[in-house]
């Protein structure tokens, strides 16, 4: 049970996230084929493979250095919209984390919120637009609520993972208003948003890493 997000735990988080998207590549792509361009699984798998290769091949001394590298690697390797979105998330995350080798739970909440801010700046999506924001925003709310209730890092991360999964599932009845899926309009109803699905994996990986 960790109470800090250290460099090693961060590496583990990224590795688990990479493994998850790799394992669920087909599922993510299937979700994307219903309402997008059928590349989210392969794009994210490619991106996270590049991320983990980069992380493994370097010895970052601080979280900011590490997550800026993650962000840039995603930007230049994912291809689809998730490249700039996840890229911006991790870049802002790294900047917010600062030149340190570990952050506590409150610090992690702040960095995650900075990352979400990057996503909404970039994609201009709001809650209910059927995007990754619909998984990430409730996750951070749950993370904050858990800390407020006196929970530790692991409790908060678990609460966030649960909320992200619920947020993911709640995208199914929504009408897409952003991205390629928005061209489908009403026809996007009934499908889970693939970005929300990969976001749920990100928080599940975080919860697993800090437990």
């Amino acid at each position: 049970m960790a109470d800090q997000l250290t460099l090693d735990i961060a590496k583990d988080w990224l590795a688990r996230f990479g493994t998850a998207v790799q394992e669920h590549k087909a599922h993510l792509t299937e979700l994307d084929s219903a309402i997008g361009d059928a590349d989210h699984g392969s794009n994210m798998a490619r991106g996270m493979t590049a991320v983990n290769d980069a992380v493994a091949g370097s010895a970052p001394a601080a979280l900011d250095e590490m997550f800026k590298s993650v962000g840039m690697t995603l930007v230049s390797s994912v291809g689809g919209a998730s490249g700039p979105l996840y890229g911006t998330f991790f870049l802002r995350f790294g900047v917010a984390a600062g030149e340190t080798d570990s952050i506590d739970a409150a610090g992690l909440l702040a960095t995650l919120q900075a990352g979400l801010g990057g996503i909404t700046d970039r994609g201009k999506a709001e809650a209910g637009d059927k995007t990754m924001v619909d998984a990430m925003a409730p996750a951070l709310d749950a993370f904050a609520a858990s800390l407020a209730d006196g929970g530790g890092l692991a409790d908060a991360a678990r609460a966030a993972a649960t909320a992200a999964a619920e947020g993911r599932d709640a995208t199914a009845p929504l009408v897409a208003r952003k991205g390629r899926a928005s061209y489908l309009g009403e026809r996007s109803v009934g499908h889970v948003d693939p970005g929300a699905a990969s976001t749920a994996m990100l928080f599940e990986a975080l919860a697993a890493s800090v437990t």
Partner: protein
Amino acid sequence: MSPPSRVGIVVVSHSAPLAHAAVALATEMVAEDPPAIVVAAGTADGGTGTDATAVAAAIEEADEGSGVVALLDLGSAIMSAEMALEFLTGDIEVRLVPAPFVEGLVAAAVRAAAGAGIDEVAREAADALAPKLSQLGERGDHRDGATQEAPVESDADARATAVIVNVAGLHARPAAAIAATVGRLGADVRIGAGGRWADAASPTSLAILAAAPGTTVEIVGRGPSAQDGVDAVVALVESGFGEEIAAEESGEQKGFTPDTGGEARSAAAAPLSAPLGVSAGRVVGPVRQAAAPAQEPPARMVPEAERTAQAERIAPACAHVAQLLRETAARVDGERAAVLEATAAIALDRAVREGAESRCREGSTAERAIWQAAGEIAVALREAGGVIAERATDVLDVRDRVIAVLEGRELEAARTVDPHVLVAVDLAPADTVELDPSTCLALVTERGAPTSHTAIIARELGIPAVVGASGATTIPDGTEVMVDGGTGEFVIEPDRAQRATVRERIVPEPLEAAGATADGAAVALLANIAGAHEAREAASWGAEGVGLLRTELAFLGRADEPSVEQQTREYGEVLAAFPQKRVVIRTLDAGSDKPVPYLPLAAEPNPALGVRGFRTATVHPDLLARQLDAIVAAITGGDAQTWVMAPMITTPDEAAEFASLARAAGIGQVGVMIETPAAAVMAGQVAAEVDFMSIGTNDLAQYVMAADRQSTDLAHLTDPWQPAVLAMIAEVGRAGEAAGIPVGVCGEAASMPDLAPVLVGLGISSLSMAPRALGPVAASLAAASLETCREAARAVVGARSSSQARADAAQRLGA
């Protein structure tokens, strides 16, 4: 800062093949010297996607110092491009343009290649969807150079709808009529059709509406004159802009090509896939390529302090061009004059002027601003298609003329004396107006349509013409070609068998014998001309003399008065073409209506009723004195029977004054023109002062009917068949007979074969007209006895309407 570099372009796409194909398409437009275009597309492994780092690198590569405009396809392309801006380290100005990808790229490439600034390149790209919206009739909130936003409901002080009823729809001339009317009333009126709105004071804006017959247009007015403006527009639209009547305007044209008008309209919408004959006649001759159109003015960023000065150059240059066009219009007749008046209206169009002025304020030179503003409107007109598209040439012609004025050049149509087939991409109104039918054997254009100016004027001048001849402008000068304006045949280097067919050319017959009625009463058939060149042509058509030499040609369109020597030479050449024949010289008919710089007159609200014609002689007597001296000097050197008359006489005293001046100068036969109702009513007393009278039916009809002769809407009133006009002519005829002096007609009426016998019956002894009308008029006179002519004359004066007058005359004349 005025960087010598150009704006770079970055193309961000999910797909490298898509981006490269789009770039290839855009580069075709600017193959000579494309701007820097860098692609950021696809993932590093060749897949579909975008990469913000690659976009940033592309921006850095494309920048030459003037900034970069980025075109984006969709989704992550937009986000990657936005993200790339955060990665840029240097100080590069970048515009991410919300433009349609392909259209925007083409527009941006063209503008960037031409050296436009970053804001202009970005704006052009962003507006690039407008032509497609216009073409496909899409309802939307797009805006292009001329269309307006829909008016807010609560803003309207007056509102109405009307249905377009005329065959050709809301094309250039109706648009000009609406704009003129609204402008006169000072009303703020907008007209909407198909979801688009136009400023009713802007003819080009209206034309882009492309409202076809049957279209319901909405008319919305604001401000104090709103109701008047809306009512006036409704009346114009519902009257069909007088188009039905306009078809009868030119009896001369109708006589020779009775079928082309109707065919032309129905064929207008058909695309030209092959050369199309638009004016009959079959000729062979050597090609002469028309002068190339104006070159695009170079781009230069004007320092802020000088921008207002650049903007202020636009309006005077436009006004000057309009004036020059109107001066030319004053020298020619009928359709040619109407075309020039319409072109002059474009030069004064608010859309053109304001578009250019706003570009000046953004740092463009005046030359370049007018180039781009007019170019944009021309593009919009072309995209509108059909009859409207043909007006794009007029706008570009105005553009070239305004640029010439701004650059201090005079744009002169090249003239050649050798017979030739004139080949051009398209001919501007002024080009065709200045055509010389005696040397121009035929016209061949790559563009154009049956209703284009090329076609209309070629028919009027009787020059064979073929339009839609792709590639014709690549034929070297001097190459023999055969042109058939009836069938559309266009043969390069025709063989002997093909040449032999050229004899089939049908032309009006020249006059073979002196004009006379069936029973031998002589009627002198004379020519209206404006210079020596036309004099020689008129002689070759068999004219018995000149009934009207317009001397304005020597005076108008120049900065200073021609010297007596110059005038003498000009008149002498005319007289030499008609040895021992009658030549009637009219003294300068300038003034408020046809201003000349060295004849300063106060501006008048109503030039047609102002200081014009002989009235100018009271303000500037020296000018007339020098002209009379020049005429006398010319007479002395020749052996023509030279008569001299003054224009625009109103009172017997004026007639007496002119007669004494002319006789004192040494002129033997002195006359006056009868163009005012006052002179016609007082013709008996006027006749007592002079040796002859000549009726100018165009102005006489205008003043008798109180109807502007330029107004298309009032053409039914200025019809010379109006019984009131004919009654005036009868009055003058009687006065002439009583005084024993000859009375002629030198207006449009004289060239109408069906009206000619009536005029003779009214006491007219000479008819002066365009040379091509001589044959048909002679044939018509030869078919009726003098007594029949008189019967017809008595019938028309008692008629109630112009149509009844026509019918009565036709019945008497057995036509």
